[in-house]
C-alpha cells in the first residue's frame, strides 16, 4: 500500500460517508437531521483499574536500569514500538502505532500527585475527586460539572459499558446515567401488545405535562427525553459499527461511539477496564489487557473518523497509580506511584511530554511524580468549556496537550 496510510483510507471513508456513499450513513443522517450538538467537544475517560504498569506500557527502553530491574518482565528494545529515543509502546499496543504516526497520540510521563497513596481505593478516590485532602469524598471531578452541560441533550454525561457509577461522576444534580449496553434503552414489552403499540401507550401514559404539576410534571418531561433517547439509539443501532474487538473494552468503546454518533448531547463518557493489579505472573495477563485496550482504542478512533466525530473527541486513559520499578519474586509488580497517561484524538497534540528520570540509584523504588494529574484535568476541562475551578480545587498549570 505505497504511500496510502490507513489514516488516508479512513479519511476517504469519511468523505464517502459525507457524500452518502456508505451504507448506513443515509440512515444516520436522517436520524441526526436538525440535531444540535454535533460540534460540541466530548471527553471519553478510560479508567484502567488496579494500577496499570506504566513502565510496561510506555517502556523506557533506552534505560539499562529498567532492564536490570525487570529480568523477567522487561520488554527488549527490539520489541518496543519506539516513540522517542527513550521510550516506546509495549508491542501489545501495536494498534496505536498509526494513531501515533498521525500525531493523534499524546503521552504524559510521570503523572501523579504528592505523597502517593498505595491503597487502590484511596488513590482512585484521589483521582476521582481531584483532591488529596480528607474532605468527604462525595463529589467527583466530572460529577461536579455534569450539571453545566446545558445543550438540552438527554445524555450529557454517562457511564458506559457497565452500570456502576464511579465516584468521579458523583455529585451531579441528576444522577448520571449508567448504560451497560444499548439493550438498557430497549423498552421491554409486558407481553400483551406489539412493541410499537406498547410504546405508544407508554408515551400517552408518561410524557404528557398537561394536568401534571410539581414532581409529576418534571418526571413527565424527563420521560419524554428518555423515550426520545431510546428512539435515537435504536436508529443509530441499526446503522451499526465495525471493527471493535470482542471483550468488555471493545464493547464499551463501541457503545461510546454510538452514543456520540446519536447526538444525544454527550460531553463526558466514562469507560473502565479492570484487571491491572498484576502482582503475580504479569506476563500472562498484562499484554492481553494492553492488546484489548490498544485494539479497542484504535477501533474507536477509526469509528469516530468514519462517523465524522473525530475532530471533537478526546480520550483520556489513566490508572490510579503505576507500579514499582523492580519486579517482584512472583513475576509481577507491586503498587507504585507516578504513571503515564495517554491522550488520543485529533484535537490532541501528539508527542511525549512530562518527564521521568533515569531509573538508576537516584530513584528509589517508584517512578516519581513530575506532573500533577490535576493539570491534565484542568486542561481538559477548559477544552470542554467546563468550570475547571469548580471541579478541581486549587491552582494547577495548564499543559500544552491539545492543539
Amino acid at each position, binding site marked *: 500500500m505505497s504511500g496510502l496510510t490507513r489514516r488516508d483510507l479512513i479519511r476517504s471513508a469519511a468523505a464517502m460517508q459525507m457524500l452518502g456513499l456508505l451504507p448506513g450513513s443515509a440512515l444516520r443522517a436522517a436520524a441526526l437531521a436538525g440535531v444540535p450538538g454535533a460540534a460540541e467537544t466530548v471527553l471519553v475517560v478510560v479508567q484502567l483499574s488496579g494500577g496499570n504498569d506504566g513502565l510496561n506500557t510506555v517502556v523506557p527502553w533506552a534505560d539499562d536500569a529498567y532492564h536490570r530491574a525487570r529480568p523477567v518482565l522487561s520488554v527488549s528494545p527490539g520489541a518496543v514500538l519506539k516513540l522517542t529515543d527513550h521510550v516506546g509502546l509495549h508491542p501489545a499496543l501495536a494498534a496505536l502505532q498509526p494513531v501515533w504516526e498521525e500525531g493523534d497520540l499524546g503521552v504524559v510521563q510521570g503523572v501523579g500527585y504528592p505523597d502517593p497513596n498505595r491503597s487502590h*481505593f484511596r488513590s482512585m478516590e484521589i483521582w476521582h475527586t481531584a483532591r488529596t485532602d*480528607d474532605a*468527604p*469524598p*462525595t463529589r467527583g471531578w466530572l460529577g461536579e460539572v455534569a450539571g453545566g452541560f446545558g445543550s438540552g441533550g*438527554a*445524555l450529557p454525561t*454517562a457511564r458506559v459499558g457497565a*452500570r*456502576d*457509577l464511579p*465516584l468521579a461522576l*458523583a455529585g*451531579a*444534580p*441528576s*444522577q*448520571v*446515567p*449508567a*448504560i*451497560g449496553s444499548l439493550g*438498557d*434503552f430497549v*423498552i*421491554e*414489552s*409486558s*407481553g*400483551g*401488545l406489539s412493541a410499537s403499540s*406498547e410504546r405508544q*401507550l*407508554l408515551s*400517552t*401514559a*408518561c410524557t*404528557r405535562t398537561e*394536568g*401534571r404539576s*410539581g*414532581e*409529576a*410534571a*418534571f*418526571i*413527565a418531561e*424527563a*420521560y419524554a*427525553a*428518555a*423515550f426520545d*433517547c*431510546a428512539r435515537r439509539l435504536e436508529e443509530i443501532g441499526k446503522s451499526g459499527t465495525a471493527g471493535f474487538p470482542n471483550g468488555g473494552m471493545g464493547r464499551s468503546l463501541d457503545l461510546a461511539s454510538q452514543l456520540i454518533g446519536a447526538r444525544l448531547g454527550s460531553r463526558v463518557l466514562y469507560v473502565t477496564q479492570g484487571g491491572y493489579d498484576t502482582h503475580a505472573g504479569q506476563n500472562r495477563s498484562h499484554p492481553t489487557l494492553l492488546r484489548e485496550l490498544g485494539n479497542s482504542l484504535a477501533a474507536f478512533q477509526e469509528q469516530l473518523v468514519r462517523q465524522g466525530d473525530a475532530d471533537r473527541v478526546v480520550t483520556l486513559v489513566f490508572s490510579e497509580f503505576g507500579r514499582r520499578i523492580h519486579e517482584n519474586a512472583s513475576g509481577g509488580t507491586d503498587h507504585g506511584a507516578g504513571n503515564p497517561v495517554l491522550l488520543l484524538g485529533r484535537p490532541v497534540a501528539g508527542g511525549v511530554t512530562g518527564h521521568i528520570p533515569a531509573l538508576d540509584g537516584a530513584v528509589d523504588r517508584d517512578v516519581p511524580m513530575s506532573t500533577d494529574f490535576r493539570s491534565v484535568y484542568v486542561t481538559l476541562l477548559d477544552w470542554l468549556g467546563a468550570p475547571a475551578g469548580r471541579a478541581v480545587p486549587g491552582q494547577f498549570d495548564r499543559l500544552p496537550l491539545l492543539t
Partner: protein
Amino acid sequence: MTRGSFAAADAALAAYDGPFGEAEAAHLLRRTSFGGTRDERREIVELGPTRAAIDRTSPPDDESAYARVLDALAPLASADTLEISQSIWLTRMLRDPRPFRELLTLFWHGHFATSVTKVGRTRLLVKQVDMLRELGQGPFGELVTAISRDPAMIVWLDGNANRRHHPNENYARELMELFTLGVGNYTEDDVLEAARAFTGWHEHNGRHRFNAHEHDEGAKTLLGRSGALGGEDVIAACLEQPACGRFVGGKLFRFFVHPHPDDALIEAVGARYRESGYDTLALVRTLVGSRAFYSPEARRSIVKSPVLLAVGAARSLSLRPDTTELADRLSGLGQSLYAPPSVKGWDGGRTWLNAATLIGRANLAAELARRAAGQPVEELFGSAPADHVQALNDALLDGDAPRPLVEALRRDSLDLPTCLRAMLSVPEAQLS
C-alpha cells in the same frame, strides 16, 4: 423565625384529625410499609389515623408465618455473597407483615452509608444492617455508639489507621458532618480532637476491638467539653447539640413527610427529638400521624427510590418477584443494597431520575407485569378490563391515573399485564 412560624410548626406536628379514607390509608401505607393491599387499606381506615400510625409501626400480633420465612432464609445467610445478601434483604421487605422496621433500616443504611466496595466482606455489611434493624427504632445515641464500634464502619472509615500518634480523622469528620450535626455546626478543631478521642477503636477479624495501646488518653477539648475524652464522650457531646436534633430529625421528616420543611418546622422537630432522648420510634409516630403528613404538599411529594418503587408495587399487588433478578435491576436503577455510592448515601429526590433509569423503571414495571400471570393479582383484580383498570388504578394510584391513560386502557380492552405495566410506569407511580 417568628413566634407565628413556631405556632404554625407546632400546629403542623399536631395529630391529624381530618378525613381518613382509602386515599389517606394508602398514603400512610406507602410511607410506613412501602405500600399495601386493598385489605390493608380497609383495615387501616377502620383504625383511624392515630391508631393506624401506631399499628403500622408496631410488630404484628402474629409473627409465626414470617418467622418461618426467616428460618427458611437462614441457611442462605452464611453465603457471604452480595447477590444473595441483597436478595435476602429484599425478601424481608417483601414478606415482613409489618415492613416498617425494614423501611427504617433502609433509612439508616442510607444515613450511615457503608459500602461493600471498600469493606470487601459482605457479611460485615449484613451484620451492620442487622444492628441497624435491631437498634434503629430506639434512642439514636445507642445507634451512634453501636455504629462507632461497628466493624464494617471501622473498615469503611479507616478506624484501624486511627492511632495514638497518628490520628486519622475520617470517622470523626463523618460522625459530625454526615451522621449527627451537619456542616457548619462544628469546627475543624472539633474534628481533630474527636479523632484523638476515637484512637484505638479498631476492627480485628471482623470484630470491634478497643486497642488501649493505641488510644490517646490525653486531654481534649471539643464542642464545649474538656477532659480525657473518649469516643463515648464525643458522641454524647454531639447529641447535646441542638443541631443534632435538627439534622437527624430533619432528615427523618424529609424521608417520612415531605422534602421541603421550613426552618421553624425543622426547629420544632429537632427540639422534640432531642427532648425525647432521641426516641426515633416516637418521633416517626408523631410525624406519620401529623397534620403535615396529610397536607397536600406531602402527598406524592417524594420521588420513590428504586427499592421503594419495586417493593411498594409488589406489596400493593401481592406479587412475588424473583428477588435475585430484582436486586440486579435495582442496582441498575442506582440503588444497590449494601453498596451506597458514597458515605453520603443516596442523594435521593430527582437525582434518581435520568434517561436510563426512567427506561429502567418502565422496564421494571414490565418485568413485574410479566410475573403477574398466575399470581394472586389475577384473582384479586379480575380479568375483565373494566374491572382491572379500576382496581389497578385504586391499588397503585389512589384512583388518580391520568385520564388519557384510563381511556386508552378501557377503549382497547387491554389485558391485565399491559394495564399493570402502564399504571406502574406513570410519573405518579414514581412518587410516594
